[in-house]
């Protein structure tokens, strides 16, 4: 069995190597190979942990608490699998996408660095779920944050730079809060291992523990997009290159959230739960309603992420194991669906040169596969029965009702309301995609695509009947199997199909996923 330390060491080493070699092609292949290796290994760790229990790793031959408490348990192994798989898919997508993501001087060189940054972001996420030491957590948190600040600004347009700055300022305030909390924890516990801190805080005066809990939760909560702290999110997620948006919405906020919840449970006890529950519900309302008013596709999706993450947080904040279980299901579904949505929207933006939803009118005709994937992912996100989203949402409402508290009932109402709003804005987009003729100034952009597509000899829109046929919602569902030239490139198609497969399989094999999530949920409450 390979030591799980390879999860940290390999991405770091590969990143160093990429910069050392400095070649784009090498960067692509190295990154893909490294992540593919991790994807290959991750299931074995997961299986091993399910069989033999948590695996603790001694670092530097120094036992905790003096050394860093580190290791894999069901939760981290599950998330390692999730991160590795999403990472691999997004890397596949990046290969065709990134050369077009930024139009700036030195873009080719930047592309090499993109892969290094991406690997470091993954390393940060791996470290975040594996560490059981609060300061080590901070270090990995910073790796994750800084790499995302840079990647958000990757395309170096005005909007992405601005988003990067905002993200960074809020992130820095958050890390300062966290550091103070870490200092206070060390002061009272004399240790940095989360276990010891949990015990010490339980014995500490209420006010002291409360301040630590609030500072830590709010500091870390900035990355986890808890309601009033998530103001950076719509900017960052909508301005980043779409591959990065997919990663940020797909697993970065989720990892932060789960780690936060786990620390909340094991270190701060139930101190923060009611506050988090209320904030979560506020987040659902604000996120979904704000998404309703958006005109840009990626901003809509970003606000929808706020709503979705808040739903997860609500489930977690119920404080029951079944709540954690339900929240994890929602998390997995959101990773699949939202990543797919962001990845697809990346090519919508690339093809039309516009962020506005309205300019995608009739795009399904040009990009049938992309539009079909978009619709499927949207269906799952809204929670239509055969899809994954239905079961996870159903679960959450079930546990909320089982909580038999005012917050639980309010949560049911809010989530049901949120679902309605979500259906409205997501299917408004779907309707535009499958809508009639392209109107307005944007059509010339599409003419360009058509010319490019036609030059290849493929004339997918030749006869009128087909045109009508493809304009149909389901028409493109059917044509998804035969993507056209203007559609997603092969690698991007594979990546998106991978995420969509998750939401499809998640629905039909829900019991299986459910079973797999149970030990993870159990591990969430322990360290």
């Amino acid at each position, binding site marked *: 069995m390979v*030591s799980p330390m390879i999860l*940290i*060491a390999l991405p*770091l*080493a590969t*990143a*160093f190597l*990429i910069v*050392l070699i*400095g*070649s*784009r*092609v*090498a960067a692509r292949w190295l990154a893909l190979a490294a992540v593919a290796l991790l994807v290959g290994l991750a299931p074995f760790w997961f299986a091993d942990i399910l069989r033999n229990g948590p695996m603790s*790793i*001694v*670092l*530097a*031959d120094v036992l905790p*608490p*003096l*050394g*860093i408490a580190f290791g894999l348990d069901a939760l981290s192994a599950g998330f390692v699998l999730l991160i590795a798989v999403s990472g691999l898919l997004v890397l596949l997508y990046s290969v*065709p996408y990134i*050369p077009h993501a930024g139009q*700036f*001087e*030195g873009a080719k*060189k*930047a592309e*090499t*660095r993109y892969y290094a940054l991406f690997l*470091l972001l993954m*390393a940060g996420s791996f470290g975040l779920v594996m560490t059981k030491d609060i*300061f*080590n957590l901070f*270090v990995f948190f*910073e*790796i994750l944050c*800084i*790499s995302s600040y*840079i990647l958000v*600004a*990757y395309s*170096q347009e005005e909007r992405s*730079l601005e988003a990067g700055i905002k993200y960074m300022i809020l992130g820095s305030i958050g890390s300062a809060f966290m550091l103070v909390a870490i200092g*206070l924890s060390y002061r009272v516990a*004399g*240790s*940095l291992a989360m276990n010891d801190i949990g015990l010490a805080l339980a014995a500490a005066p209420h*006010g*002291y523990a*409360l*301040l630590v809990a609030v500072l830590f939760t709010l500091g870390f909560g900035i990355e986890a997009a808890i309601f009033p702290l998530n103001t950076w999110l719509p900017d960052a997620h909508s301005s980043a290159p779409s591959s990065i948006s997919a990663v940020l919405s797909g697993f970065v906020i989720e990892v932060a959230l789960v780690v936060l919840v786990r620390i909340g449970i094991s270190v701060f006890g139930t101190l923060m739960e009611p506050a988090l529950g209320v904030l979560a519900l506020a987040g659902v309302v604000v996120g979904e309603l704000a998404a309703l008013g958006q005109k840009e596709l990626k901003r809509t999706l970003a606000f929808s992420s706020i709503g979705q993450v808040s739903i997860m947080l609500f489930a977690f904040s119920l404080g029951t194991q079944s709540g954690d279980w339900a929240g994890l299901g929602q998390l997995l579904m959101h990773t699949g669906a939202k990543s797919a949505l962001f990845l697809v929207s990346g090519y919508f933006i*690339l093809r039309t*040169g516009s962020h506005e939803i309205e300019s995608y009118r009739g795009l399904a005709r040009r990009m049938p596969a992309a539009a079909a994937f978009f619709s499927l992912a949207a269906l799952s996100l809204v929670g239509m029965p055969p899809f994954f989203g239905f079961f996870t949402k159903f679960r959450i409402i079930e546990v909320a009702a089982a909580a038999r508290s005012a917050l639980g009932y309010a949560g049911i109402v809010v989530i049901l309301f949120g679902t309605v709003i979500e259906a409205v804005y997501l299917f408004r987009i779907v309707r535009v995609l499958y809508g009639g003729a392209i109107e307005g100034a944007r059509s010339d952009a599409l003419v*360009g*695509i058509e010319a490019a597509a036609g030059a290849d000899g493929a004339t997918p829109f030749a006869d009128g009947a087909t045109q009508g046929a493809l304009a149909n919602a389901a028409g493109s569902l059917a044509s998804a199997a035969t993507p056209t*030239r203007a559609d997603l*490139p092969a690698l991007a198609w594979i990546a998106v199909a991978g995420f969509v497969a998750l939401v499809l399989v998640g629905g039909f094999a829900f019991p299986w996923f459910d079973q797999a999530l149970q030990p993870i949920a159990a591990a969430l409450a322990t360290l």
Partner: protein
Amino acid sequence: MRKVIGFLLIASFAFFIVSLVARDLWVDDPSQVRTLGQAAIGQTIPQSGAANTVTAIVVQFRGLDTLGEVTVLFLSALGVALLSGEFAGRGLSELFADDGGFILHYGTRLVLPLIALVGAYIVAHGHLSPGGGFPGGVLIATAVFAVLMTNAQQRLSTRLMAVIEGLAGLAFVGLGTLGLLGDKFSFLANVLPKGQLGYLFSAGIIPLIYAAVGTKVAAELSTLVTSLTGSDRDGGEDHGASSIPADTQGGAR
């Protein structure tokens, strides 16, 4: 208005902090090191062979933190290089356009080896005295910085720096992996002989790691400064293959 609201918020925040932890923070004046600190002090010599307990903690006991820290620096150098991709010939370079003149030129060249030497000394003695890879590396980078500041014509190859920092980073990870290969089977384990306390060649892998860190920090800070001042010798272009694969050409706007 903003100021008033800001003040009120900060004031109430301050009120809470003070009311919540005042008693704990202000009253006691500790005379005893906390548990973990004591453990670190006690374990430094037997486990690492270093004289500087802080170094022992930084490089060995909490070596993963340091690996992360190095990564953060690497990240920021990478980020600055990436984001300043267009600075070549612009950016802060105007500030550095003034030639320092004869005295500064040669003065800098004179002190350059001295600064670098002191830096190297600090790096090398990290396990014995205050200092180590970070301050030492910064000191070495300062020398580079001084040269760039005083001589407008001076250029530095970021390519070379990238190779150096990549190698240094790989060395760190490689030294860590050494621990995995050894009988302790533990990442970053101190598998080399510890030597005698207080000697330069002691403390196992700690000086080696600090050497890697020092090199890396120096290279990264130099890259950072080079990128920001636009004094990159190589210009903006990539060294790798530059053709976009055929199947990715679809992104025409």
